[in-house]
């Protein structure tokens, strides 16, 4: 019995807790991508670097707060900095819309042109981030580290495997739930939110109904920037901040959005968790886990790991390909294809 409990605790500690946190981060990132796709109808390659940009703002403000002695008790100061970072990041994104995307919108350009333009914006954002904060790792988490430590857990339960939950993981999940609830409330209950859905559904008819496209687009960008900043900050708190990692997050984020059906917010959330759980389950080494469940004298040769963590991106990629092969509109139907 103890063995089974220990095995479960092991899984919880190394798979479920991290996957839920990572899934929440991906879900928030994918939501940003999917909302831009639904309203503006292109895949925004700059989203990863928008996340980096927003996170950089958070970090700089956090440092500034810390230098003034402002802190948030047991919680990371970054949470206090977040709203300000969102404002700054939105400003950047709105400027990028004004000087880049708006022109193509007026021209009714092909989606692939937007795609290339977003690559250009990606470059610029990436350059700004590296120019200001540099290409290296930055750690900006402060406050309490753990909600529950493995040691305490062991003491409480008497198991030999502990479960530890980091504050950053707890914050990630809570923030994700709050943000998603707010977003859905906004989209389904408010006038502006409904007008955004209408615009996404049928742009011409939205115009005929007197919906102001400029406002819809601006609100979309602000939401995307907010989601990017939040997702980026949570990821940075949980792991660490490095500009190139954020560029690499593009792949799992897009995979999540496509798996869920591009343009479908619910799908993006589900997709985020599908990707996160697959990635961690496939790259987890089951040696110790099997050790608890197998007979005493059984001994594993090797780590019993399906795929080395070096290839975690391959997991998103394979899932992406499978979805494109078998169900190109995504698990939930998106506006894609």
């Amino acid at each position, binding site marked *: 019995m103890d063995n089974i409990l220990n095995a479960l605790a092991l899984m919880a500690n190394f798979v479920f807790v991290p996957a839920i946190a990572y899934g929440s981060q991906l879900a928030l990132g994918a939501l940003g991508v999917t909302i831009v796709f639904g309203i503006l109808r292109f895949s925004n390659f700059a989203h990863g670097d928008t996340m980096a940009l927003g996170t950089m703002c958070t970090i700089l403000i956090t440092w500034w707060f810390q230098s003034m002695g402002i802190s948030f008790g047991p919680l990371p100061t970054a949470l206090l900095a977040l709203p300000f970072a969102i404002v700054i990041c939105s400003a950047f994104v709105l400027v990028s819309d004004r000087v880049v995307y708006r022109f193509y919108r007026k021209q009714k350009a092909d989606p692939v042109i937007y795609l290339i333009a977003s690559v250009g914006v990606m470059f610029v954002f990436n350059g700004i981030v590296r120019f200001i904060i540099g290409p290296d790792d930055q750690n900006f988490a402060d406050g309490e580290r753990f909600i529950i430590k493995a040691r305490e857990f062991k003491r409480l339960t008497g198991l030999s495997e502990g479960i530890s939950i980091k504050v950053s993981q707890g914050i990630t999940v809570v923030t994700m739930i709050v943000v998603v609830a707010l977003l859905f409330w906004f989209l389904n209950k408010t*006038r502006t939110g409904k*007008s955004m859905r*209408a615009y996404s*559904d049928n742009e*011409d*008819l939205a*115009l005929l*109904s*007197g919906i102001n496209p400029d406002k819809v687009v601006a609100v979309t960008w602000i939401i995307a920037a907010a989601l990017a900043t939040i997702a980026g900050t949570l990821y940075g708190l949980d792991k660490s901040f490095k500009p190139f990692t954020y560029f690499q997050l593009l792949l799992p984020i897009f995979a999540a959005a496509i798996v869920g059906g591009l343009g479908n917010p619910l799908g993006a959330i589900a997709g985020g968790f599908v990707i996160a759980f697959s990635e961690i389950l496939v790259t987890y080494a089951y040696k110790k886990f099997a050790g608890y469940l197998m007979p005493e004298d059984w001994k594993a040769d090797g780590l019993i790991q399906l795929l080395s963590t070096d290839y975690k991106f391959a997991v998103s990629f394979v899932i992406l390909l499978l979805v494109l092969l078998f169900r190109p509109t995504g698990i939930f139907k998106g506006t894609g294809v």
Partner: protein
Amino acid sequence: MSFLTGEGMTGGYGGADILHDCTISVDKGEIAVIVGPNGAGKSTAMKAVFGMLQIHTGRVVLDGEDITSLSPQDRVAKGMAFVPQTSNVFPSMSVEENLEMGAFLRRDDIQETMDQVFDLFPILKDKRAQNAGELSGGQRQQVAVGRALMTKPSLLMLDEPTAGVSPIVMDELFDRIIEVAQTGISILMVEQNARQALNIADKGYVLVQGRNRFTDTGKALMNDPEVRRSFLGG
């Protein structure tokens, strides 16, 4: 002077002109119908009246005011409403939300108007929570017309409201349209079912290759032997 006049409209989608000196007008509380062969430019004429298309010659006058240079949104604010021929609902939004979006520009209480629409199309009341994309063709057309009525327009423009609708539902829709006209709303509509449409029309236009071919009262056109032969199938 009619309530709405599109006068000598000439223009197209950027390439060659599609409309040539085309004139269309409708009076208060009247029904005007545009008929003509496929590709005649009927939809184009509607779009020109609604400002979705640049006309380089001619003008559009609404209630004595020249609105030629106004954007479609501004025309909505002036009391015009348009139901396009295709994709005229928000498919992933509920019927009720579709109607709300119709009233987007209104800041007053829209409940009364919505009740009126539900009175006009009772089936929509039952389906209010269902997504418009999941409705039948006829029901969808009702949503489309209902959405347009939500602005409390003084001019309602319909592009083939009965397309793809069974004959029974079509008669029903025509009845509703007459009802709407009786409340004082002017109606300008394009119809494929020329006979029935001209029957209820106060005024009829036969458009061929972007030009006015025949213009008369609905009755007179119905009785014109040439119109009958060429456009009403004998």
